[in-house]
């Protein structure tokens, strides 16, 4: 089981890198926000895997905070843009 979790976290790490590349290649804000959302979910999954791998239940709370703040960041991004449209 431990070995499987290590491999799973490696795959998720690689996926993180790929999502990052995808995000960096985008030029419009919507796609970037989408990329941040995807990276956030990726990070949440990685934290959950780590909590199991390293036997640290505190990391579950870190995943919770990351999920909450990713939502906050999405609001901040889209609101900012709307304000500019309204200006």
């Amino acid at each position: 089981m431990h070995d499987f979790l290590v491999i799973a976290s490696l795959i998720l790490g690689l996926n993180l890198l790929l999502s990052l590349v995808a995000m960096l290649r985008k030029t419009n804000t919507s796609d970037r926000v989408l990329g941040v959302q995807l990276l956030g979910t990726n990070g949440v999954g990685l934290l959950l895997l780590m909590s199991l791998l390293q036997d640290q239940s505190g990391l579950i709370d870190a995943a919770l905070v990351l999920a909450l703040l990713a939502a906050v960041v999405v609001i901040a991004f889209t609101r900012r843009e709307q304000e500019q449209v309204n200006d």
Partner: protein
Amino acid sequence: MIDLLSIFLIAGGLFFYCAGTVGLLRLPDTLSRLHAVTKADNLGLGLLALGIALQIGDPLSAVKVLLIWLLVLAASAAGGQLIAQHVVEQKEETK
């Protein structure tokens, strides 16, 4: 037995994560990317969280993991709508 189920679920989760990333890389326009990415990463995290929750001894922590999934599900649905609205607004603006 539980281990096997966990492995199956986590592997399924990883598959959907990768599908989401491929979607972001490959799909042609923002709205279809939005559709693919939000679905894929929610399913990905869902299966992953389920697999991990089965492995956690402490039931409280297991419930917390599932709550995180629900939170991400709701946040991603709402965030997806916000992004879609944003895309539509920008299209109207450029017209």
